[in-house]
């Protein structure tokens, strides 16, 4: 294992400290328990939005704390859901009296720990509503699994819910728009290489030199199938095919296309993926009116990418375009 770290036990705390220092105009960090919060939190009368989950997916979630998006992020240990304590602390720190939305990716650990935290915060008089994100179409049959996973679509949920909260929507409305985004976004990913969790010290899985994993999760959980390496266009056709099968588009409908890097993939490759995905959507009559390309929901240094398609309408487009000022996403301000 070769990493730019000191003690594996200190990875999260040191990274969070560095992050907060580098972006002190936007956030501050608490280190006991660990969470990252908007520098100006709590904002009276505004619905607070908290997300979180295991570390190793940066910039998710701390990179999305700031004006127009999250009020706080709770990073757990690498690939491990945070415990309820920091979630409760973050929830309290952002409560401006209008209640708090928890955006939770659908992993057993995240769901259970956020559940406990919501109960505890509720017991202290804070109204908490949770929205579970499960955009990953790779998981086919939710009856025989832990259900679809929350992956890169989470970023879109956070951005759009954040814009709704920023313009003054109430808790029910913010939760509703978050749920709407979740219901209209689908994602599927591919891994070319595994990643190494610092405390494990070994790759999370193995792939032969000519193998790729289609439908990978963001912790290196395997996906639908392991196949031989193919040209990028063929891989994109598989990923996008699965997405469009799950969520058909009528000709003329509008979409946001997100090509997300898993952390270790060069940008040229992400744009090659984007190119083919946009081409295929155009062939199907889908109008790509908004785009996002980059590393947003990563798996440490994993090589690979995911494609997310969000079915837009006028309201979602307006909220997407609204100003945002975070470490990782910034426009209009």
């Amino acid at each position, binding site marked *: 294992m070769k990493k730019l770290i000191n003690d594996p036990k200190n990875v999260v705390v040191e990274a969070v400290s560095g992050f907060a220092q580098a972006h002190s105009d936007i956030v501050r960090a608490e280190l006991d328990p660990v969470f990252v919060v908007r520098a100006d939190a709590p904002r009276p009368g505004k619905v607070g939005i908290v997300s979180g989950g295991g570390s190793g997916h940066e910039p998710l979630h701390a990179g999305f704390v700031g004006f127009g998006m999250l009020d706080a992020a709770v990073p757990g240990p690498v690939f491990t859901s945070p415990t*309820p304590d920091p979630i409760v602390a973050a929830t309290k720190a952002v409560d401006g009296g209008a209640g708090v939305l928890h955006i939770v990716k659908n*992993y*057993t650990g995240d769901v*259970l720990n956020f559940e406990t935290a919501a109960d505890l915060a509720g017991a202290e008089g804070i109204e908490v509503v949770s929205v579970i994100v499960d955009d990953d179409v790779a998981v086919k049959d939710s009856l025989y699994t*832990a259900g679809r996973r929350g992956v890169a679509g989470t970023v879109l949920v956070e951005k759009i819910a954040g814009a709704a909260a920023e313009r003054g929507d109430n808790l029910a409305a913010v939760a509703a728009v978050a749920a709407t985004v979740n219901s209209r976004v689908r994602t599927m990913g591919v891994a070319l290489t595994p990643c190494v969790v610092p405390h*494990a010290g070994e790759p999370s899985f193995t792939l032969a030199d000519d193998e790729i994993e289609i439908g990978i999760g963001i*912790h290196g959980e*395997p*996906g639908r199938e392991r196949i031989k390496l193919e040209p990028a266009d063929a891989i994109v056709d598989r990923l996008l095919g699965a997405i469009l099968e799950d969520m058909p588009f009528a000709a003329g409908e509008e979409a946001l296309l997100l090509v997300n890097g898993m952390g270790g993939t060069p940008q040229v490759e992400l744009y090659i993926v984007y190119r083919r995905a946009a081409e295929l959507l155009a062939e199907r009559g889908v109008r790509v009116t908004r785009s996002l390309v980059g590393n947003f929901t990563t798996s440490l240094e994993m090589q690979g990418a995911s494609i997310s398609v969000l079915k837009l309408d006028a309201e979602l487009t307006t909220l997407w375009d609204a100003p945002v000022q975070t470490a990782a996403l910034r426009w209009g301000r």
Partner: protein
Amino acid sequence: MSGTVDAAWARNWITSAAEVLAEHRVELINLDREIGDGDHGENMDRGFQAVLERMGELPADATPGDVLKIVATTLISTVGGAAGPLYGTAFLKAALSAGAAPELDAPALLAALTAARDGIVLRGKAELGDKTMIDAWTPAVDAAAAAVAAGSGASELLDAAAGAAEAGAVATEPLVARKGRASYLGERAVGHRDPGAQSSALLLRAAATAAGASS
């Protein structure tokens, strides 16, 4: 071997569990790397080291229930992941079942183990055969019930429960998972032992060892 277990047993159990989990940290990480995300050993080790540190906060006259309760809250606030809330709930329910009794006889231990198992099911909704820690806990509870029916004491009961949990953990190997991360693997989970079932077996074996030692 003794007929009941007391607070000294509970303390020994926890000390021994922390040791055993530290020893098996890498093994559990590797099991979890194979069909999960490779953190289970790290999570459990971190949690039980934290528990060890907090044992000092217990008053001298703490009951077994008091010990179990501090284990519960510490695991909840330090383990994270799926295992943290699940084990936390298990220990919490066991603590509630044990109540304020200074000693637990075999029927009381059976009740506590059953409560723990039911707590895990309540939170995680797993069934027997889903390839989760339940596949260690349910056989353990059944063996404990058989031991009570056969008139065994607490120490024998724990020994039987640990043995059944160990067999249950091994028996997860041929299964396809239907809960937790391993469920995404489909057929590919076959041939791998569930890390949570394995850590459960280690925990229950530590309980049995502690009962033998403190007898």
